[in-house]
């Protein structure tokens, strides 16, 4: 069961130029879905379409199994969001900002101190938001998104403006919300490192196209697949000829000999063969791509 599902979602701002191109996003219920991509990849546009902030041009959006176009209000009742910069009224206090939304959601007023405490702002209820730092505004925006006890949280780069400690706290909070309250979370970021410790699923978007979608283990598997053995010898040409007879996938690239990731015994055997043929091996290593490199590789390809 998918909490969010988009089918053939495309969007253009200017005629003929697709900002989003056939996006088929599937966010499983109960997951923390990291929506990754560099700046300008189409993350915010996708999230704005999912929230109905942009008029849909092509494709279908389903949230909680219902069509967004037909059930917008009912869907929004069970959803909390934070898109880009915080939406807060600077001339009002933190509690007043929450109170004006409490009027709309008609949730208990007791939720106001609850959510303020949850995001670590318990003593700021009567402070004007214009006096808040960016990090505090970001936290208050999360409190706003949590006010109606949503089943789904959509957060667009929520750690913007937070210090390292704040980022860790935010991560822990989101994990807790997901595990204890079964809230599905869709979180966008342009930094994989920032959310890889948080997410269960990943979608990677670049230039409006979804390049990868799957679980975090799927991405880790992709990482292992792309790991290689690299060698540098005193005679790479002769080494390549020899290696090709033993391991046909061998190739030369940028002054290095590259082989797919092999069992340690096989690597030792190949090394022995080279040495026994009178070739000096200067460098022998397993090159493991980290997730960030996979992300960059996907994006750059």
């Amino acid at each position, binding site marked *: 069961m998918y909490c969010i599902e988009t089918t053939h979602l495309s969007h253009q701002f200017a005629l003929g130029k697709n900002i989003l191109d056939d996006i088929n996003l599937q966010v499983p219920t109960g997951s923390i879905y990291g929506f990754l991509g560099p700046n300008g990849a189409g993350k915010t546009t996708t999230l704005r379409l999912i*929230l*109905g*902030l*942009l008029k849909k041009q092509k494709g279908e959006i389903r949230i909680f199994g219902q069509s967004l176009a037909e059930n917008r209000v009912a869907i929004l009742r069970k959803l909390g969001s934070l898109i*880009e910069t915080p939406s807060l009224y600077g*001339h*009002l206090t933190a509690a007043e900002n929450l109170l*004006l939304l409490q009027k709309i959601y008609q949730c208990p007023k007791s939720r106001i101190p609850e959510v303020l405490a949850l995001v670590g702002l318990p003593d700021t209820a009567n402070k004007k938001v214009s006096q808040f730092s960016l990090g505090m505004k970001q936290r208050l925006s999360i409190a706003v998104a949590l006010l109606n006890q949503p089943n789904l949280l959509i957060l667009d780069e929520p750690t913007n403006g937070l210090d390292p400690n704040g980022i860790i706290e935010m991560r822990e909070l989101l994990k807790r919300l997901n595990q204890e309250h079964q809230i599905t979370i869709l979180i966008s970021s342009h930094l994989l490192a920032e959310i890889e410790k948080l997410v269960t699923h990943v979608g990677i978007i670049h230039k409006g196209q979804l390049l990868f979608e799957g679980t975090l283990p799927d991405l880790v598997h992709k990482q292992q697949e792309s790991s290689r053995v690299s060698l540098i010898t005193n005679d790479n040409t002769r080494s390549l000829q020899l290696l090709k007879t033993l391991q046909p996938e061998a190739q030369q690239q940028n002054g290095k000999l590259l082989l797919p990731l092999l069992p340690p015994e096989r690597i030792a055997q190949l090394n022995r063969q080279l040495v026994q043929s009178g070739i000096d091996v200067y460098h022998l290593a397993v090159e493991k791509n980290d997730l960030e490199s996979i992300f960059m590789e996907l994006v750059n390809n």
Partner: protein
Amino acid sequence: MATILLHSIQSEWMKTKRSAAFWLVLIGGVFIPAILTLVHLVYIKKLGKIYSTTPFWEKWLINGWESMSILLVPMGIVLATSLIAQLEYKNNGWKQVHTTPQSLTTVFFAKYIVVLFLMLQLFVLFGLGMYLAGAIPAWYFGHIPYPKEAFPWGKFIQINASFYVMALPIVALQYLLSIQFKNFMVSLGAGVALVVAALIALSWRYVYLIPYTYGAIHFLQLQGKMRFKSNILDVHYLALIYFFAFTLLSYILYLTKKEKG
């Protein structure tokens, strides 16, 4: 539906608390009465004669409407509606508003009703201010007699209500401009230009075509100084027609807007 709209109005009303629009309406409402009170204090010796004339109150109120109808109310509306919409633009509020579980119709009319209510507040404050500005000298200074006639509450409300109707087309068009354009200068600039154009158009034969002139026209009609008569309809009806037309246009444009925050 009505309950949802009521909750939405409460939420929108809360946003005006301590806002620039709130202070503008408060100060705008009592500005002319305060000025007239100051003038009274300067010409205190002449007040006895003025207060002895009948009818005092009606003349007094119309006198107050002179600057209000021609300049201050239109300018106040231009500023207040722009400021209300700017509350959302300035605070990135539209995207929050549009992701709450409310229909677009509810969002549009809740904010609109708050703007109309703020304007009503301006008129009520002005009315009360005029009453107090008229009554205080008689209460305070022994040599000034309290006007002999009973205070004409009905007439007072009727005159203020008429001017409110005259202001409605301006509210509607300024609301349209304010929510359509993110740039504060568009609604403000267009509003100021239209107010100035209306002042110039007062001596034009087709002045009734320009809804920003209706307050001034009504004032001149009350004074018996309006040069041209409307060949089409009474200015009250014209104001209401413009108001509903601008409201409808504004609603359609809002619903069909591609980006909502």
